């Protein structure tokens, strides 16, 4: 089997603060194969966006930096050690990124076509006409009708869903193999949300695009993802194939998240919640970060951090007291 398109190993990100360094992302590991959609799930502040920012080397502040680990692209280059000029070729060229709010992430004073051709002309040395043709083609691919007409429109002339399509077009302009989608449907209507997810799955099939989908919506995960990694307090607490995570999760946080989904009428009444607040930076609990909110927590959980164990080839778990039967395929 060919090596994974992207292999993240023990990636850690720290922030320098007045109270000393704080860990934002803690030894996160996962692999992304060709054509795979990986869901990165967690509450706000769990480190899912920060992990992706670290992958493309665009951390939001100079006080935040990668403190360890590696990000291997196509089994070759380690992105954490690339020169800035080489990293720029990776951004847009190998890894594209789309964001939650297309209105603010598109330049309002440049036409959609301008933003697409700008990337194409920067990454591939092609002339204006050729770049424009490619831009029309990519707009067509993301489902914008009459792309030759709409290419000169400005973002404000597009509707919300169209804008998200346009942002996908801008991100895919230079044919990256990987797309990082940071909550791409959170700001959209439910109907439009479904269309965008459909589009992402189409693109995966047609282009063999690998996608990291950041979301806090397990419904979205259930619809489109192949693999799921659940993050809590900067760590991945459970990772595995979608089926296993949705139907047979073992980490109390994962099961808690699944129980919180408002499911269509099977149990009426109040939506379930996980008691307590997610940890904030600077007040990270000792031991397992989830133990203050966990019903199964013991003394051990407060003292020692659970090791990340691959108890099955593709299913990783970091918990002292997993829920349910674990079919040990050999505890590594």
């Amino acid at each position, binding site marked *: 089997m060919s090596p994974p398109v992207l292999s993240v190993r023990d990636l850690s990100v720290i922030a320098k603060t007045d109270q000393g360094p704080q860990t934002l992302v803690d030894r996160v590991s996962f692999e992304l194969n060709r054509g795979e959609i990986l869901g990165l799930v967690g509450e706000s502040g769990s480190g899912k966006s920060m992990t992706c920012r670290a992958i493309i080397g665009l951390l939001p502040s100079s006080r935040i930096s990668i403190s360890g680990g590696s990000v291997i692209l196509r089994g070759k280059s380690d992105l954490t050690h690339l020169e800035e000029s080489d990293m*720029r070729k990776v951004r847009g060229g190998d890894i594209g990124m789309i964001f939650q709010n297309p209105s603010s992430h598109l330049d309002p*004073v440049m036409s959609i076509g301008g933003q697409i051709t700008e990337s194409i002309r920067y990454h591939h040395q092609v002339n204006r006409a050729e770049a424009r043709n490619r831009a029309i083609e990519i707009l067509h691919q993301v489902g914008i009708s009459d792309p030759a007409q709409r290419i000169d429109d400005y973002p404000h002339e597009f509707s919300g869903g169209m804008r998200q399509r346009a942002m996908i077009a801008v991100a895919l302009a230079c044919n990256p193999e990987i797309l990082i989608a940071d909550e791409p449907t959170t700001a959209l209507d439910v109907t439009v949300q479904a269309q965008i997810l459909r589009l992402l799955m189409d693109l995966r099939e047609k282009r063999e695009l690998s996608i990291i989908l950041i979301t806090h919506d397990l419904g979205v995960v259930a619809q489109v993802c192949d693999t799921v990694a659940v993050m809590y307090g900067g760590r991945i607490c459970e990772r595995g194939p979608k089926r296993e995570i949705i139907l047979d999760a073992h980490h109390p946080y994962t099961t808690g998240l699944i129980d919180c989904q408002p499911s269509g009428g099977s149990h009426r009444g109040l939506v379930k919640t996980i008691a307590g607040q997610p940890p904030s930076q600077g007040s990270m609990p000792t031991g397992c970060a989830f133990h203050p909110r966990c019903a199964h927590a013991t003394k051990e959980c407060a003292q020692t951090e659970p090791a990340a164990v691959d108890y099955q080839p593709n299913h990783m778990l970091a918990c002292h007291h997993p829920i349910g039967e674990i079919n040990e395929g050999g505890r590594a």
Partner: protein
Amino acid sequence: MHRYRFILYRPIQLLPVLIGISIIIFVLVRSIPGDPVRALLGARGTPESILRIRAQFGLDEPLWTQYFYFIENLFKGEMGRSILYKIDVLELIGTRIEPTLVLVGGSVLLALLIAVPLAAIAAKYRGRPVDHIIRLMSTAGLGFPAFWLAIMLILLFSIQLDLFPVAGYGKTFGEKLHHMILPWLTVALALSAVLTRNLRASILAELHSDQATAARARGLPESVVFWRHVMPNSLVPTVNLLAINIGWLISGTVVIESVFAIPGMGQLLIRGIFTRDYMVVQGVAMTFACATVFVNFMADVLTVTIDPRVKL
């Protein structure tokens, strides 16, 4: 192209504004205490000669008739005859408009040449010493009155260092340039201070905006992100601030032209007021008003060109 449609109907909208301004100017000019003919003739004036000259300039007519003549002339593209200079006001303005245009145009250009790089540097090195120096300088630039700055510049560059003439305008292009450097500097220092502060704040906000992050995520180098995405978005508020300041500057030339003895519109206005030369004061004030309106109109055109979201 429909975003430029306002260019067609804006002049029609501006007509009532200009008529309103003409009424205000007309009434204010005539509220200046004193009488143009007495000022012209001084002690020499006999009651007969005063009456004769009053009739010659139509000053014996009722006020509303005089206003009507003023407006009628304006529509014919005339501004009446100067009582003091005995020539057409329009012709008079024609001889005086160049120094004022050169003064305003040069100052604005120089202010932009100072403000844009300084704002960019200050924003890029936010919180570093260079940022603090630029911010301190622009705060200081706001605090100095123009006439005081002008005198200080003359003292330093003309009298101590003998680099530039103390005053005047000159005849050849080279002479004019030499004479205008200190006036330009005087205006540009104050103007660039306002622009730098404003532009620095806009650039800072845009540098950390989502769209700039997205542009970086496309692999664009920082220079492209800055000049093609950050700068155009930052310029929109500054263009409007600049337009307001040019309006203020047009009347502000009165002070600068007086200090540097530049034979422009400002001087003409001052002299017109002292001699109660109604036609000249009306004409110059009307020209200033039209220029201000025009500058704001151009700012709107520029804003629409930069920002397609703006609807006018």
